[in-house]
């Protein structure tokens, strides 16, 4: 059978050749462009197989010869048609740069992806989009804010773009799908059949069902370290505005910010406590001139979509009793320990523990690893409170 033909005898589309090329070891977007040398995927593949890449790889430098040999060995034992069938079986769409279905947003991008793999519908990219990014090691405050902004934007018809990582990313998407609104967009660093991190499997599936999950990596690609900055560049390129919720001093979200700045996208940062290491990066961004994002409203203004007065959700939590109010007051808005609350209130541990139990149960406080954090607003599903855990809400998505 002619390898140029598909299973059913029809010629393979350009995307199949590009996907096969991307599947070679250590093949990134830049090397792919060099290999193509302006020509088509099929010609490039044949050049690889026959070892006639010539001078195309010269700009790579010393590894050029070694890579050409490696790719030739790999390409010889691969069947492009068979690999293409895997994409069809996994219902993963493949779009090549320059082909009609390719998202227009990348048209004038300095570093567009050569090929986009996607699960879900690319139509999700049509409307206004806001990237919400942040650290995996976030605080309860960051999770709450990410969830609120995610939910608020989706409700206002703005698609939330994020990376499906743990922490802020996951909370932003959990918020976006907690309301009936704009479809979520996720950009991941691994192949679309390699769910990473595994904890987000459910959320991943929900995003793909409601919106789209995009990747630059072919099927079977494990999440290598270099793929995350590359992924961040796509998030920046896809976003009309980038919001950083929480970031450590040298967090990965700052690379998204750099990419956004390079593309003239406005960057907003959520102000945090000056004592919180998880807010050090965002506070530094504010100092550098990023706009403050205090809520959905600020983001909508940055998008030029300012609406009328934003109505707060009605408070559904049980009112705080007179006996427990001083304990809630003593926890304050910074993460506190039971110990600090005992010292601040001067009450016995037993009384404080009773009050804390009541407040956690009511959704006013959350507790993690011995730290108490005050919950700003009623976040039904996200609250640790066991009374709310049974509700089908964001919690089930975040699992």
């Amino acid at each position, binding site marked *: 059978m002619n390898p140029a033909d598909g299973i059913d005898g029809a010629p393979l589309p350009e995307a199949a050749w590009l996907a096969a090329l991307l599947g070679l070891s250590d093949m990134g977007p830049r090397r792919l462009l060099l290999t193509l040398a302006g020509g088509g995927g099929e010609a490039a593949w044949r050049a690889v197989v026959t070892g006639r890449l010539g001078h195309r790889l010269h700009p790579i430098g010393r590894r050029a010869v070694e890579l050409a040999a490696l790719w030739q060995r790999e390409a010889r034992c691969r069947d492009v048609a068979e690999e293409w069938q895997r994409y069809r079986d996994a219902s993963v769409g493949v779009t090549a740069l320059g082909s009609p279905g390719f998202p227009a947003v990348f048209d004038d991008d300095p570093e567009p992806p050569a090929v986009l793999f996607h699960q879900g519908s690319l139509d999700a990219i049509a409307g206004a989009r806001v990237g919400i990014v942040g650290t995996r090691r976030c605080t309860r405050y960051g999770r709450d804010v990410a969830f609120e902004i995610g939910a608020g934007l989706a409700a206002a018809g703005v698609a939330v773009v994020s990376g499906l990582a743990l922490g802020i990313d996951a909370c932003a998407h959990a918020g976006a799908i907690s309301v009936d609104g704009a479809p979520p967009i996720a950009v991941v660093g691994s192949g679309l059949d390699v769910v990473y991190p595994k904890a987000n499997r459910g959320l991943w599936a929900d995003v793909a069902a409601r919106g789209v999950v995009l990747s630059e990596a072919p099927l079977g690609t494990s999440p290598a370290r270099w793929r995350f900055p590359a992924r961040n560049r796509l998030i920046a390129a896809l976003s009309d505005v980038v919001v950083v919720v929480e970031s450590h001093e040298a967090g990965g979200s700052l690379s998204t910010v750099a990419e956004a700045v390079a593309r003239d996208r406005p960057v907003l940062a959520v102000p945090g406590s000056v004592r919180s290491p998880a807010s050090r990066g965002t506070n530094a961004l504010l100092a550098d001139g990023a706009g403050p994002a205090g809520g959905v409203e600020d983001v909508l203004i940055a998008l030029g979509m300012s609406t009328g007065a934003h109505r707060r959700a009605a408070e559904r939590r049980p009112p705080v009793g007179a006996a427990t109010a001083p304990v809630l007051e003593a926890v304050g808005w910074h*993460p506190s320990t*039971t110990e600090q609350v005992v010292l601040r209130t001067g009450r016995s541990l037993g009384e404080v523990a009773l009050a804390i*139990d009541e407040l956690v149960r009511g959704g006013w406080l959350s507790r993690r690893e*011995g730290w108490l954090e005050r919950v700003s607003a009623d976040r039904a599903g996200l609250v640790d409170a*066991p009374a709310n855990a049974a509700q089908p809400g964001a919690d089930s998505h975040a699992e």
Partner: protein
Amino acid sequence: MLAIVSSAALSGVQGFPVSVEVHVSGGLPGFAVVGLPDTSCREARDRVRSALLSSGLEWPVRRVTVNLAPSGVPKGGAGFDLAIAVGLLAAIEEIPPESIASLGFLAELGLDGSLRPVTGALPLVDAVAADGVVVAPDNVDEARLVGGDGVRTVATLAELLTVLRGDAAWPDVAAAPAPPPLPPLPDLAEVRGQPVARQALEVAAAGGHHLLMIGPPGAGKTMLARRLPGLLPPLEPAEAIDVTRVWSASGATLPPGGLVRRPPFRAPHHNVSPVALVGGGHRSMRPGEVSLATNGVLFLDELGEFVPQALESLRQPLEEGVVRVSRANGSATYPARVVLVAAMNPCPCGRSGAPGACRCSDAARARYHRRLSGPLLDRFDLRLHVHRPDPEHLLRGSPGETSASVRDRVGAARVRALERQGCLNGRLAPAELDEVAPLTPAAVLLLENAVRDGRLSARGLHRVRCVARSIADLAESSAVADHHVAAALEFRLPVLTPESYASAVRR
């Protein structure tokens, strides 16, 4: 000619009586020790011979057989030297046989004829089947704890000879000097802030509950743990003898006066082997750290760094209060009633100062926590996070309550528990709980909620009720109220196991 002398040997922390039978007969000159002696025991021949010659005596040019009865039990150590020498002298009629009839002998001999101390003098003296016992001067304090006025001592073999021949009276055993005042223990008043951890220590002391402290380096975990022995009431005389027996048998240095009067505090390093922790050994069965800490505190710092087998071997002793060691050449039972206090960092980087500050990957944290098995964590009734205290409390805080006043409360709570149920609250059986720890309706509701939320298992429920009982005892309350239960729940924070960590992250 035959002479029989009383002595004793060690098996675990108990002694057992041994008769040293010395037979001198004609035939080729020689010296044999039978009755399963170990090497140091067999070498007695050379020590005894030199000691005799140094003391101005002749070595009999005859055939000497020494039997250590019961001959089927392995025996070790140099403690039979004196008994063999005395038996030999009696057998060749250098001393009158009746002079040694009611005496036991326990000492090692130096080549110059001096008497040297033996390991385990206390259990050995306890086991000797005779009215009086002769020990080395350095063993006198220890021997008198159980031997009383029957303890005799001489400095050398030559001196012993004159006494046994009737040429001199037994030298006076110096009356035991009043035990010197104990050096002060670190006081709880030095701990600033930390109200929750202080109370946890108090509850651990009152109920004999095991305590796990999780916190970043510098939070004061070790400082707190070192103050626990000072909160325990002083040892009862019988407990003190029990502890001293173990210490003596293991060869540990005894305090001046010979008696361990204070609850012991043992803090083995985290590279301790399972055998060193629970006891056993290749030839001699020696008690481990958990037995040396009996009636006191066993402190395991950096719990996550211990060899997993060593930690797992602690499970049965913690449950039963005794260690049963079985080896090919015998088995032994050691006491192991300890309050276990353990400390560990929340994660390998130890930086969890505030939420979001940790630099560890999920996998690294999971690996760190996987070293602790669920069953072992289950043994800890009290688990709490210890945080670095605020600087203002460190520098300007008033000193806390002193150990002495906490100790009074702990003592009273222990008395309440012992009068009520005959054991500490940490050892309460589930069946007894309803009777001895009645709950108020509000407390029942609180526990019901905790079980329904999945915060407590059935076993956890039982342990929380035991801890609540201790808290109520400290507050001199006969019923267990809701704030007692709330505090007990606060002391049982979920410890991060890999599973629970994953669920905490995705929230």
